[in-house]
Every structure is written in C-alpha cells, then in structure tokens.
C-alpha cells in the first residue's frame, strides 16, 4: 500500500499489460516504475457470493469466460468476455485492467453494467465499494485515486432473467475493438408478457460505457411486443447514445447501430 501513495507520481500498476505496454510503446507513458499486481493472492480468484459472484481483479478474461460457475450464473458475462480480444489477448487481459483502463469500448463493461456490478477499491485511506456505473468518469478516466481495484461484485439476478451481448466489429474477427456494443439483461413477469426489469448498457457510444436509462424506462411495466421494442431501441439511439465520429465509425452510423442492436437484443429476449 505504501507504493500506492506514489501512484501517478511515476508508478503504474501492471496487470496483463495489454493496454499498458501498448501505451508505453506509443510513448504515451514513459519511464514509469511498474508494480506487477498479478500475483497478489486474493486478486486471483473467482468465488461464488450468495447467488452472485466475486471476481478477483487480476483474473484474466478468458478464464472468466470459460469458468463453469460464470457460465451457469451469468452467461451474459461469459458471452461478452469470450469475444474480448483473441485467445492470446484473453489469456493476459485482466478484468480489472479492462475496467481500470476505462475505454468506452471495453467489452466487459456493458455486461457488468447490465448486471449492476460494483467494484471494490482499496487505497491507503481504506476501501470503498463503488457501483460500476459511477466508476467511469470519462474516456480513460475513472474515480480511482491512488487505489487498487481488487474485486468485482456481481449481485444475484432474478432466475428468469436472461441476457444478450452484441458486439459490432469492423471485420470478421469477433475480437476487434468494437464500433458499438450492447448488453441487455431482461426479466419478464411470470406470464412472460410484461417487461418487469430491463437493463440496457451501451459501449463505444458515449465518453464512458453507459446504461440506456431512457430506453429502460420506456419498457418498464410495458407489454413485450414489437412496438415497445421499437420505441426503446429508438430512445436508446436518440436519447441515450451520445456517440462521436472516429476512425472506427461515424456518430450517425453508431446511432443507427444502437437502434438495430438494441432492437435485436430485445427481440431475442422476447422469444418465449
């Protein structure tokens, strides 16, 4: 922890290094002391926690994607992490690194937002638990203040809830940095006619990964049918997404894709 005091003052935490080393090579980060956190013992576990999960920040994303426990409890998370980078990247990239790096396109974020995960941050001043939605503060920025992200807590979700993750990439490989990503977790009522709980999260269409609150609100308590799906998809695209144009895609294409992918996800989750 005493090292943590020096964070930003010439010291960086190194997990898998798949973001950090690229930044160093590009010259965006130079002459830093690196502290390898991969071998801190309690950062390396996947544990059940009531009906939820606790993920150590230094577990690599491929291990999480393939974990039977994760597959059973949160197939949505497993689905999202299975396409985070190629096999080689997935074997190194940690879940903590993916979140701490705070790319708007980070693939673990939409699924974890939709599952309403929280992160545990530990610093010289003690520890705190922050809902993931409040963790990101901008592209590459988080609320971390000379702290270590140690755990990700995924709370239990209703049994009848189901999730879908869509990632739109620029070429055939499923593991590129996405143009747009969408994670939806939806809970229908017992009769499967009404949306009782819907959480929609979007990647790469705002300065941070976001929840599409306007779209969610429009669905709550409504009939599961084409009209509500369409309305929600439109709201997600027009009200929730705030995309920019960059080398991967224009703002207008991104908006259009939010609409398409949210609609597809909701349609898939509407199937009885």
């Amino acid at each position, binding site marked *: 922890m005493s090292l943590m005091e020096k964070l930003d003052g010439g010291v960086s935490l190194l997990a898998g290094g798949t973001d950090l080393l690229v930044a160093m090579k590009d010259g965006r980060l130079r002459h830093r002391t690196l502290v390898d956190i991969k071998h801190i013992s309690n950062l390396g576990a996947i544990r059940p926690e009531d009906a939820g999960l606790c993920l150590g920040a230094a577990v690599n994303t491929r291990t999480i994607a393939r974990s039977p426990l994760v597959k059973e409890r949160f197939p949505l998370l497993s689905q999202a992490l299975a396409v985070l980078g190629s096999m080689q990247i997935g074997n190194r990239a940690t879940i903590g690194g993916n979140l701490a790096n705070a790319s708007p396109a980070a693939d673990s974020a939409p699924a974890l937002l939709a599952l309403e995960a929280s992160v545990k941050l530990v610093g010289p001043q003690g520890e705190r638990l922050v809902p993931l939605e409040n963790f990101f503060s901008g592209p590459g920025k988080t609320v971390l203040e000379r702290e270590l992200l140690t755990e990700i807590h995924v709370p239990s979700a209703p049994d009848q809830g189901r999730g879908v993750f869509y990632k739109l990439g*620029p*070429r*055939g*490989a499923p593991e*590129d*940095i996405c*143009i747009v990503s969408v994670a939806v977790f939806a809970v229908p009522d017992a009769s499967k006619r009404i949306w009782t709980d819907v959480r929609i999260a979007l990647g790469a269409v705002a300065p941070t990964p976001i929840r599409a609150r306007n779209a969610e609100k429009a669905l709550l308590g409504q009939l599961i049918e084409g009209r509500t799906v369409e309305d929600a998809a439109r709201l997600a695209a027009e009200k929730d997404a705030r995309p920019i144009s960059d*080398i991967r895609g224009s703002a207008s294409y991104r908006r259009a*894709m939010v609409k398409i992918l949210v609609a597809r996800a909701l349609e898939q989750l509407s199937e009885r």
Partner: protein
Amino acid sequence: MSNDHKVIGKSIPRLDARSKVLGEARYADDLSLPGMLYVKVVRSPHPNARIRSIDTSRARNYPGVISVLTAQDIPGEKLMGPIIKDQPVLCGEAVGYVGDAVALVGAETEQAAEEALELIKVDYEILAPVLDPFKAMEPGAPQVHSGGNIGTHSKVRRGDMEAAFRDATVVVEKRFFYPRVEHAYMEPEVAVVAPDPGGGFTVWSSTQYAHLDREEVSRVLGLPQSRVRVHQMMTGGGFGGKINPHAQCLAALIAWKAGRPAKLRYSREESLISSYKCHPFVMDMKLGANREGKLLALEATLVGNTGAYLLQGKAVITKSATHVSGPYYIPNIKADAYAVFTNCVPCGAMRGYGVPQVTFALESLMDELTGRLGLDPIELRMRNALDTTLPNATGQVMGASVPIKEMLGKAKLTVQSLKPLLQQAPAKGKLRAVGVGCSTRGIGSIRKPSRSTAVVSLHPDGSATVACGHVDLGQGSDTMMAQVAAEELGVDVDRVNVVTNDTAISPDCESTSASRVTYLSGNAVRLAAAKARQRVLEIAAGDLGCAPEELRLMNGSVVYREQGVTLAGLFSKHTFHSVTSVAEFLPDTVPPDPETGQGRPAGTYNFNVHVALVEVDEGTGQIRILRYLALTDVGHMINPLIVEGQVHGGMMMGLGSALMEEVKVENGVTNTSFATYLIPTTFDVPQELLIGVVEEPEPTGPFGAKGFAEGSLDPVGATIANAVSKAIGVRVTRLPMTSERIHELLSQR
C-alpha cells in the same frame, strides 16, 4: 506439352519452408555486427513546408550519438527512386508530405538515437498543403513541384468514339473510387550497411530488388556500382512495396559518415506513415453496347493520387490505362489516365499495379449493362471476351493462351451450383446474391522491354548452381527456378542451389514484380540450363561417336543406351571444373505509343474469373462471403502448391481492399497501426474458398508457364462489389465496402 516431366508440375514444398518453420531463416534484423550503430530518422510533421534551418548541435552532443546527418552532408546524388528519381534522400529545402525524411541520427543504441531525434530542431515555414487530386489540378493550387501537379498523362486512343456511342443502344456511366492501400508486409523495412576495408560497402536488406539497392546506395554515396554489394536477406513480403531502397540509403549514409556498420529498421508506424502505397483512383467510366450486348465503346478518365513523388506513378498509370478494357474486345476506346501530385504520402507499386482499380470500375459497368440489356452476367462477358485473334486496348493480339471463355464456362457451372444456396431462404434481415468479376493483365513491365539473365553451372557431381537476380520474397520463385533447372539437367531439386540474393553473383533481372519472374527468369534459367546440358552432351557425343540427341543427362551421368558416363570423368578428361552457361530472355514486346497507347506491351497475358456468393446484413451492412471461386490461368503449372498459395494470398489481399483497407490521410496518414489499419484475418476467409486452375500452355513460356501472382487479386474487389450491389439493389461505387458504407447505401434504397 509432354507430361513426362520429372519435377515440373510437381507440388514440391518450398525450399525456404523448413528454415522458416524452424525459425532458422535469417532476416536483415537478425543481423548484428560488431560496432554496429542504430539509425533513426527525423520525419516531417507537415505535409507542405519549407525548411528554414536545421539545428543539430544538441543532438550531436547527446551521449551515445556518433553521427548526425542532413541533406547537405550527402556525398552523391540527393534524389532517389525506383523509376523516376524524384524523392529527396533527405529533404534539404522543402518537405512534401508528413513522413518525409529530414535528418538522421546514428547512435550506439536505438534508444539513444531515438532520444536524440527530439533534440534536432527543424525550423519550418508551414505552407498550405494540397491533398485532393482534383483540387491539385485547379489553377492556383499549391504546386507540389515546379512542373505542375500533373505528374503524368497516359492515353489510349482506338477507333471513332463519337460514332460508336451514337451506335450504342445502351450507355452506362459512373464514377468509381478505389482506396489507397497499404502493402502490410509482415516485415517492415530493414537495412544493415557496413563499410568494407577496400572502400566499398556491403548491404544486407529486406528488398524486392537487390540491384536497385546497389544502384541507389552507390549513387547516394557517389561510388561505382561495383563497389556496393547487396545481400537480400530472407524477406518477409514486399507486394511491390520494397522496390524503393530508402532505408538502405539512409543506413548507408550513417555507415559512410561514421565508418561503422549501421542498422535502420522501421517501426510499423514509421512504415505506415512513410512508405509508398497503392494509388487511390477516381475513375469516370462510360461504356456503350448494342442491343445484342456487343461492347462498342469505352471512355475513361482515371485520376490517381500519386502523392508527393512520382517514383513509379508513371508506370502504374500507364498500366491502368492500357488495361482499361479488361479481357474484352472493345473496338473504340479513349482513356486518359493521370498521376496527380499532392502532399499526401507517395504512392507507387503495389500488387496489381493499377489493374485492380480499372477492373473494379469496368466490371461494375459490365454488371450495369446486364441489368439494362436483360442479359446474364456471364453471357454478356462471354459475348465480348477476347480470344487469340482479337486485339486488346493496346491493339495487341495474343495469338495463344487466352482461355477466358473456357474459364467463363466453368464459372457458369459454379454459379448454377450455387442456386440452391441462393434460393434457400436466408435468415431474417439477410440478403444474398452472386457476383462475377473478370480480369486480365500483361505479364512483366509494359513501359519498356525487360530482360532476364541466368547463369547455370553444372558441377562434376551432377549438382548445379543457378544465379539469377530475381529475389524470392516468400512467394517461392527460388523453388520454381530450381525445378526448371532440375528438369533440364536431369537432377533432383535438392541438388540445385539457386542464388538470387547476392548482387555480386546474381545478374540484374529488374525487380521481382509485375508477375514477371516465372515467365522471364523461368525462361532465362531454362535456356541457360539447356545450354549447359547441350554443351555437355555434345562433348560426350564426340567421345562416344554418337549424336547428342541420343544422349540424356541423369543424376550426374550422361546416359547412352542404358550405359552411363559420369560427369566427373567426362569433365576431368576435357579439363572442365564445372560447365557454365549464360542465357537471356527478352520477350518480343513493343511499349505503348505515348499518344495512342498502341503497341505490343506484354509477352503474355494472364486471365482471371472469380465468383462470389455474399450475404449482407440488412440492418448493419456487414458482409459475409459464403462461397468464393477464384479461377486462374497459369499457362502450365510448374508447382501446383505454390500456385495455390499465390491464389489464396492474392484473393485475401484483394478482399482486404474490397472490404476494409484504406489508408486515410488528413495531412498525414491517420491509421498508423494495425489496430486502426485493419487487414483481413483468418476470420475473414470466405466460408468456402475454391481455387480453380485452367491450363492452356503459353508457347513462349518456360514449360508453357506464365505469370499469375497479381492476377488473383485483380478482380476481387469487382467480384464482391458486384455480388453486394445485387444483394442490396444499389450499385457500389466505392471501395472498401465497410459495413458503414453499405449501411448508407441500404438506407438510400
């Protein structure tokens, strides 16, 4: 064509395969010499600027720095280039694009060299750049060079355009855009240069043309060519991009100045920013046909953005103009092709050399015609395809090996076999269609006749050494040459040593490019080997009192009526150590006339017919290729395994520019890594990729063979675009077909 060949036509594994698989192959960057310095380059951050002054004093004093160099220190020529020598080795007065080289540092470590770069202060007077070729042609545009911004204008003139378009019942016309593409060779540019004790220099490089490295290094250092020796190291791809020995010249300058070995290796970013690319084209094309679908007239204006320097731009533009009518007979043609200077990254040679561009435009218009005429795409092509009697755009009649109609027949069967997949209802929101594309290309340089020379030495143990200057870039040409020599000399391939990579041994045969090596050097090697064999057989015939025709060479012996005489014995008796022969091959060509484009520019032509079945996601615009057939014509296969490898690679390279690749320039190149400049991966390979080879021997080729290595790329963009256009009901006029662009077209329906 006799089929009793021992090694020709056999799928012999490539001679370099084993060393590559085992990691033993030596690339230029594997080389480290005692006392070797590392070189780094100061590059311009501005697309257009005058250099007021360069202050190198702080860099000179930086720890570890041995030499710092600017244009004024260059002892020899200050301009270089593969064909047109118009690029400054180091810019002295002005810079022409972001990435232009301005100064050099040679230091004990790469890190010291890199750090010293930042201490060099260049005072620029920043000028307005011109990046768009059409703006560059306007009066008052910033002048990239003093002679105006039109670097070259190539013409084709055949027939009477006015009358022909008057007679046409259907005329289609559109503007097409082809992207600027990066070669993306796996190995970026590398050169190591060392001074020799005798005052010369030795170069070890990753290169497509070792003798050009020799020429340019000697010009820049002011030395005779004979004092520079170049070793081409194992080269990790070139695709046209390594015919410009800039890194070699820069490393040589530091080696000369410091008197020590020097290495320069480009980072991927440096390579993406500074190396020349494939020309982006804007093409206005107009095509007219009669009611029966006979093509009557083609008019084309082709504008290629050649960037800051011409380098090979003139030759690329000429190739595209002369290939404007594809594999079809069109009696009336008017084409004007321009290479236009801008302050963009330069463009030069890339696999295809202007042909994929015009193929995309022409084949798209062919499909537009089919719609208007109500004709099947293959039928329309069949009605207009060249044969051995009809002239192409240059007026050349090929006389032999023109199998395009046979290929179209095969393609038709494939299209029919795809019907069930087409009719089978695709998933919701998915659109399917089949597209066809055809192409042709002249083999070898068309701008001037080009000769290959080979030296073959037959040794007393029956083994042989072949020296020929066409370097192997990984495509397998050394293996091809070994097969050709082995066949002629009656030995196994592993008894032949092919030396193409040493300028002190291998004769200059021009660059490994233009699909020329098999046709030109294959012939030269064959002729030289045959000459050596003939000489030996004549000597033996004298001894045996028979005719040379009654003898043959086999595994180091001359065989006469099942009796063998060893070469060792024969050589010793006649005071030979080895028997060495030299032969040349120069195809019978006439370059295109500058005013009309008419001539006989190529010794032979290659043809390609491709078929694609695509599926387009109506919502996202994403394209998937479900089936792909690449039919190619190779004359006669020397090595089927290598043919297959070339067609696979060419097809996938074409798929890159069709679907995703585009070097973007805003002042400088903006996609400067493989995270933002995307190339196809295994996930982009069509679900099923079939390769078909049609063999119609080329009478002037070695064992009937001809070149084909670029051909498999030429029609890919056209083929996929035709399929996608059909699927979405809107004509694609711009490559690459990113999902965003297709989504935009879908919303125009």
